[in-house]
């Protein structure tokens, strides 16, 4: 149980979050998020695209040491069907909509729609998807491509914060480009490209994105480097599975923290509970953690 005496509240782009813990896009159903609205500071939708996407054929998930690889393929019912069911997200905490497009124009269309959607507090653009107008190169493949889509989305989303979600590759340059183009916050990181192999069948098992504790050090490094280089808040994501992971991300510079695959193996409620215990033991509030990280020093007393 989360001790209510612990001050967990943080603020993100003017949005008050009663805890710094959020679900990572695509890892919590509306039902799971509603059931956890008392422990999530806000909820984040699965990535929605303009048109429905059927998703990839199975197998879509494979376990790895300390994590998993997924190849879901953004299965979703498309914008209009999704918006009709937005009421499912009325959980009492702010809703952050994750969106993705095939083209800059699609991103713009999605943002315009979200701009007028009263239930949506902020938009997170998922740039780990191919730009069909640029030979299928990912939107987050380089700073120019990031700047173009972020600037267009910023114009299309008046009055609401725009979060830009990036993958680890080139994260510093891409983050600087996103900030320059008007991003209000950066979500770091999306899954890491990965492959699993079935040696007995001599076949690829799943080629997709790695998540879970295996990528935590990579994500922490990204948050650490980027939060020192930009002014906008950074939302940490990657491998959170216990309370101290939340603390580590905030110490490294994250204003809020997302949990994805960790919530498959454990309950986010337990993770937040552990985080509250940590804060209690340290005599700190969540806000005290922000970037309050000393440099490495030689160990003594061993």
């Amino acid at each position, binding site marked *: 149980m989360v001790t209510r005496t612990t001050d967990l509240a943080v603020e993100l782009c003017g949005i008050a979050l009663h805890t710094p813990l959020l679900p990572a896009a*695509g*890892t*919590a*159903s509306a*039902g*799971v998020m509603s059931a956890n609205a008392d422990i999530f500071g806000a909820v984040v939708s699965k990535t929605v695209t303009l048109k429905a996407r*059927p*998703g*990839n*054929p*199975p*197998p*879509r*998930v*494979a*376990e*790895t*040491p*300390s*994590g*998993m690889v*997924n190849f*879901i393929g953004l*299965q979703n019912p498309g914008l209009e069907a999704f918006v009709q069911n937005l009421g499912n997200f009325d959980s009492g905490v702010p809703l952050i909509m994750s969106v993705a497009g095939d083209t800059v124009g699609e991103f713009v269309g999605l943002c315009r729609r979200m701009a007028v959607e009263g239930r949506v507090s902020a938009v997170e653009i998922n740039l780990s998807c191919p730009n069909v107008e640029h030979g299928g190169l990912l939107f987050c493949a380089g700073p120019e491509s990031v700047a173009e889509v972020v600037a267009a989305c910023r114009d299309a989303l008046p009055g609401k914060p725009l979060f830009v979600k990036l993958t680890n590759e080139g994260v510093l340059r891409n983050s600087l480009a996103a900030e320059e183009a008007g991003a209000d916050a950066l979500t770091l990181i999306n899954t890491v490209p990965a492959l699993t192999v079935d040696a007995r069948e001599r076949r690829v098992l799943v080629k997709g994105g790695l998540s*879970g*504790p295996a990528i935590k050090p990579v994500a922490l490094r990204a948050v650490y480097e980027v939060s020192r280089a930009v002014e906008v808040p950074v939302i940490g994501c990657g491998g959170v*599975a216990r309370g101290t992971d939340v603390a580590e991300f905030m110490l490294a510079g994250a204003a809020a923290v997302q949990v994805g*695959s960790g*919530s*498959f*193996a*454990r*309950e986010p409620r337990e993770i937040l509970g552990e985080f509250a215990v940590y804060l209690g033991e340290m005599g700190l509030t969540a806000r005290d953690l922000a970037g309050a990280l000393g440099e490495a020093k030689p160990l003594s007393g061993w």
Partner: protein
Amino acid sequence: MKLHPVEVISRERYGDHVRIQYLWTGDPPQPGQFVMVRAAGHGLDPFLSRPLFAHDYEEGDVASLLVVVRGRGTALLAEEGSALLVSDPLGRGFQVTEDGPVALVGGGVWVSPLKLLARSLRRRGIEHDVYLESPAAASGAYLGFLKENFPGATLIETAGGTGSAVFLDWVGDLARYESIYVSGTAETLAAARSAAAGVVPAQLAVRERMACANGSCYGCAVPVWAGGEMVYARACVDGPVFEAAALAW
């Protein structure tokens, strides 16, 4: 996913198969539902919990699982003395109508959910026949387990490989049943689906790799027909039991 520490009452070995009994005071599992299970005391290694069918549930709060060791996850579950964490019963199981006779068809470790199904049919007085695959390579201990747990079942010798189609031949004219409920190897499921098409409604217990087991991740995709179009359903919430005719295999 919320997991509950449970008290393991017994682990009995029948060849490659292990029956695990544990105390369960939560929601009673319905036939065809599954649970997520992990061995306590190993932190997050392996990372994901393992899906297993609810094998049986008796008054007196004893639930059981039937497990075959495949890799590290199931090896830890089967290990003597290993404490377990188990979820509530999950998913959509067999949808049983009031009319008999019905047939239960299964093989391998996948016979697991048929035990609870047979128990529920018996309690409701629905006439049912049980057909179980008895592969040439199966251990005497496992066959003994089948005979003890499915009294009156017809055991059909199969040779593996193409055995499943032959096996369904043995079940005979499916039209004499109101419904068939199948939980067997992938080959048996496929054979049952084609044999039942246009003859008798069939429900199949399908498996797919899972991560969240609560409908969040879309990892457990099963192709199904919806309004003439192929879409991916989720085995963990839309299944694991599907109408055979709905499966777009």
